[in-house]
């Protein structure tokens, strides 16, 4: 399956985070893979260019992360859940309870999971 970068292949979708895409208030449980750790988190809102997450574990700004968002079959009218596999970078973190992390989506791939 093909990954969709939003601009030319090989380049990050945006060098600086620009809030130009609409944000959907979707709360989805995800696991951020940083390469050295798996960080559970929950989305607060999701756009086609980035995601805002809540987590109990800080992740440093600049960290490359991968995660998958699962859109339920029932909500999507599909036979199986839809997985949106993403690769991106942490561009912001706000300490607190809980910690909030802003991640830019550099690449994504949509696929239907088996029912």
């Amino acid at each position, binding site marked *: 399956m093909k990954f969709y970068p939003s601009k030319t292949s090989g380049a990050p979708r945006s060098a600086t985070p620009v809030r130009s895409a609409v944000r959907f208030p979707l709360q989805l449980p995800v696991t951020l893979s940083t390469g050295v750790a798996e960080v559970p988190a929950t989305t607060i809102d999701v756009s086609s260019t980035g995601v805002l997450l809540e987590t109990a574990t800080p992740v440093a700004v600049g960290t490359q992360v991968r995660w998958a968002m699962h859109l339920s079959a029932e909500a999507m009218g*599909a036979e199986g859940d839809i997985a949106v596999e993403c690769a991106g970078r942490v561009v912001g973190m706000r300490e607190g309870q809980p910690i909030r992390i802003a991640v830019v989506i550099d690449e994504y791939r949509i696929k239907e999971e088996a029912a």
Partner: protein
Amino acid sequence: MTQTATGKAQGSEPVQEIRVILADSQAIYRVGMRKIFAVEDDIRVIAQAESLQNLYTALQRFPTDVVVLEGKLLAGTIDAIPELVRRAPDAKLIVQVTEADEATTVELYRRGVRGVVPRSISPDLLIKCIRKIAAGETWIDNQSVTWVIEAYRSQAQALTSPRGQLSFSAKELAVISCITRGMRNKEIAYQVGTTEQVIKNYLRKIYDKLGVSDRLELALYCMHHQLLKQYPQEAIYDVSGKPVAEPLSIRL
């Protein structure tokens, strides 16, 4: 100081020239602007064009920093701005309009124009505008800022809030369903029984109808509004596998 062959004083910094193309159907405007820029040592008019076609040719021939474009040249050509941006991605566009209206202004900025100025702009302001835009800024007046922000706010609201009646054909719903399952255009074309180009046309129409900009935004929209939940899959295809023809309406 000694003078070099190019006329610049040796040891001084060369002046960074802004290469400008004037695209205007009226010769008197082109001549007038050329005279204004002639006394500026950092602005050089490298070409003039009196039609869009001439402008395309000029952009192909000359590396350009800024295009000053008469709005009337865009009339009737919806894709002119994206086409110009595609042909000359490094050239920044300034559009001169006779009368500013909200819809046109918002659409011009949305499509990639860096400045929208009146035809009656003063010479000094036009020079300032060109310099600012060449430096990477966007030239936008207070009224236009309000229009653009309002358009952005309305779009965001439209995408995340419940909407009125939307109408989709069965084929459009089939395409949406395939996209949100991660299928590529070629696969969808095969599934729906058409060509890849037709699928791209459907996609464009779907994006415009919903106000989304790409596949991921479409999937998120469908998730947030549970768009496809309204239709069981068997309603989209008949038993022989052919899509159902009549349009279907949903209320979100």
